[in-house]
């Protein structure tokens, strides 16, 4: 892969930590995301293959490896993992470089953007994404009758034949910064924001913030022993030198979404390891 010469000056490095020891699987994050992001309303949204949603409330259990009653259940809210590749200063998520239309890119806040109106529907990014975080609008997004009234003007309604995904609700940051500007605040990058899912979680399981800010709650959480990222094998390598050479040899996804759990089975499952 070609190295970019100039390092990008990152204004922010938004990241998320989702505490699965706190998540009760209530699904509020899912409803909030759907409302905030104008998710299409099809006649039957329980039809999973046809479903278009940014956040998937995955029900997971260890029942393949354990027998009743030594089993456990958990819900895992899964959205775009905001991969940054090996070098945070030169982000390189798997989905971005394959896009021929520059419809997806990494902003100077670390957010992997997706501009649906620019997407030509080739679905390369969807294939490249290892987390199935991207969905394709096989059908034209519909909003029957008066459901249209609940649509937000902050997020454009996608057309048929485009790929869409979670954007960390980056429009909310824009909204907050606009509000700050209106109040006469000049340093708009100092403005923080909360994505819809994090803002609605009743147990505070979803924490959002700037990973570059080492005083932030989210950064501290990602540094705890409970932190784990979805299938990012380099995280399992403890030896620093080995890690360095691995990162040199190969690109990893290195998501900016972290999960927190004290449950070994869940850690193993998230790293595609079988329970021992």
């Amino acid at each position, binding site marked *: 892969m070609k190295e970019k010469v100039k390092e990008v000056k990152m204004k922010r490095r938004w990241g998320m930590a989702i505490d699965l020891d706190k998540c009760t699987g209530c*699904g*509020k994050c899912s409803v909030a995301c759907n409302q905030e992001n104008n998710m299409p309303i099809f006649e039957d949204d329980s039809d999973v293959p046809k479903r278009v949603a940014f956040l998937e409330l995955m029900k997971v259990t260890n029942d393949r490896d354990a027998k009743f009653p030594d089993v456990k259940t958990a819900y895992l809210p899964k959205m775009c993992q905001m991969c940054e590749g090996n070098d945070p200063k030169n982000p390189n998520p798997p989905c971005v470089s394959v896009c021929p239309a520059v419809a997806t890119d990494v902003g100077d806040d670390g957010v992997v953007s997706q501009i649906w109106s620019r997407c030509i529907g080739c679905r390369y990014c969807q294939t490249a994404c290892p987390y199935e975080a991207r969905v394709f609008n096989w059908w034209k997004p519909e909003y029957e009758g008066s459901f249209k009234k609940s649509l*937000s003007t902050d997020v454009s309604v996608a057309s048929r034949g485009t790929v869409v995904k979670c954007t960390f609700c980056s429009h909310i940051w824009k909204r907050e910064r606009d509000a700050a500007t209106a109040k006469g605040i000049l340093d708009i990058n100092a403005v923080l924001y909360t994505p819809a899912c994090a803002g609605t979680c009743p147990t505070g399981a979803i924490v959002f913030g700037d990973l570059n800010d080492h005083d932030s709650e989210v950064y501290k959480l990602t540094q705890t022993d409970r932190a784990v990222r979805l299938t990012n094998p380099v995280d399992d390598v403890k030896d620093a030198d080995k890690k360095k050479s691995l990162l040199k040899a190969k690109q990893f996804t290195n998501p900016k979404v972290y999960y927190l759990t004290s449950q070994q089975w869940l850690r193993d499952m998230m790293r595609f390891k079988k329970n021992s």
Partner: protein
Amino acid sequence: MKKIERKDFLKLGGGAVLGGLSGWVFSGAPFLGFQWLAEWTQDQYVPVKGFEKYAQAVSDSCPAGCKVSVRMIGDRAVKIESKDGVCPACHNALQLTYHPERISTPLKRKGDKGDGKFVPVTWEEAVKEISSKMNSLITEGKANSIAAINKNESLNGQLMEKFIKAAGSNNVYYEPSLKSLTSSALGGYINYDFANTDYVLSFGAKLVEGWDSSADMQKVFTQWKTKGTKIVQADTVCSMTASLASEWVPVKPGTEAVLAFGIANYLITGRRLNSTGEEFGKWSQLIINKFPLAKVASYTGVSEERIKKIGDDFSKAKNPVAVSGKGACGVNASSAEIIAVYCLNTLVKSKAATLMTNSSVTYKGEFAGLDSFIKDGKFSMLFLNNSDPVYKSVLGEDLKKKMEKAFVVSINPIMNDSANYADIILPSLSFLESETPENKAVVSNFKESKDAKDIIIALSKSLDKTKDTFSFASGIDSFKVAGKETASGAKFSFNVDKIKNDIDALDKKFAANAEYPLFMIPVEAPLVGDGDGLAFPYVLKSIDPTVFYKGKLLVQINRETGKKYGLSENESIVIRSARGKLDKVYVHLTDTVAPDTVAMPLGFGHESYTKYGSDKGVNPKKIMAADVDPLTGTADWWSTRVKIS
């Protein structure tokens, strides 16, 4: 100086054109063209712009009274937000408000009941028809044949209770809830001081999955996590509550009451604890004789040692509390079970469970509860206040038959299975449209719909007998007369004579049964709950494919049990109970469910709950156990003996 030749010049020109072209291509401009083309050919909807603001609202549709902040674009509500957490119903209020199948005017039945054919009438016509019907029943001395079924104890439920009572009828019922069940069994519903307890022993109460006031419980759970409160969950499936609990006590289906007997037995005989409840002596003799620990262990599948250990931990904790009411949104427990679990609280003198009453709500009518009313009651006229007993009660089919012969008025914002059997439907509001003393309505009323409180007040004013029931003309003033919650002061009684038969019947219930070897128990999916969520597309979007997939409702069965019956994943099966059969259900094999158990999702199988909620899966209530509890007047449907084929 080199002269530029014509060839060079052409080359340069060509280069510039090529460069420009590639620049244009890489600038993304052609894609903007595509974008324009795509948008133009598809004519995609552009949301109407407007001024952004936030409006505050308090839910008056359920007793929890969630406080929400609503993001508005112009006069449109686009997002429900809350710092304190909201219950699923409040979150769904946005899609209820803008539901394309909102009822826009009062409706009068046209075809046969259940046909779903209605014609619009004016409010005057509707009210006149209702009041003349009521009037004639009252003058004929048949006032008691007027009945009402409320969804819950919200203010409009309280007004309905006052109105019907003023008309001269005692038949006001509520859809069974944790409050109604515990009130009937104990003489008051329980106010739990969860914030200050250090040990929670739950008998199948799925505390974090919609149980009681779900928004509050999520907060409570967070506090428990921070404080390290011990949560012990008895449950037949590995629910989220069981999974997040400090300890999960797997019990055989429907044996939570027996486990409570066992622990009580141990605390009374082993640790010499006493309860001050009336008839404690009689009850304890019964339990001690009938439920020795060895028997409890064999019924529940929990070892004697573990029962003792739980008893020890529970009684030694500083501020322990035992919780009954199996289930999440749909709660069920027999009075014998509620009493036994409450007994544990009295044995350890728990400070965390206080019996309460609401001055405006009595859960009993002429009958002990809704199901006994459906079973044995007679009515000529029935008001349904946002309730859907045809769908939610296990006796829904019986109710349908009785409704066919009565004059039925239903007050609700969208259609449901019960309203489909109404003679008159009066359209009510979502809470975003209703005003409270603190807040103005967030959005204006949908077409001709009205606040349920205003509807009930108007109905009462239209009758001579009830015209003075309310001293005010508008629902907004009724907040002043909202019922007060106070400690009930009722003396807790074991009511042994009333529940003895049920306790005796347990032996039969758990005896081997060759015809119906399995137990069916309910489970709930997030947001769907026991059915209210299904009309809302954003709820449908969240359903896990292991619960409902491409039109197929999946029941969860343990792998070993599956092997025993030769079942394979996704296979279609028929479930039969003594009451009937369910087909079109499919198998999901998982070890999160106890052996010999069929874990059946609630909330599916509506008949007429808008096009989004209807005809998806089956409604298992149709075949669930329907023995009505003598104290709560509610069917004990939690575990049903079934067979599969």
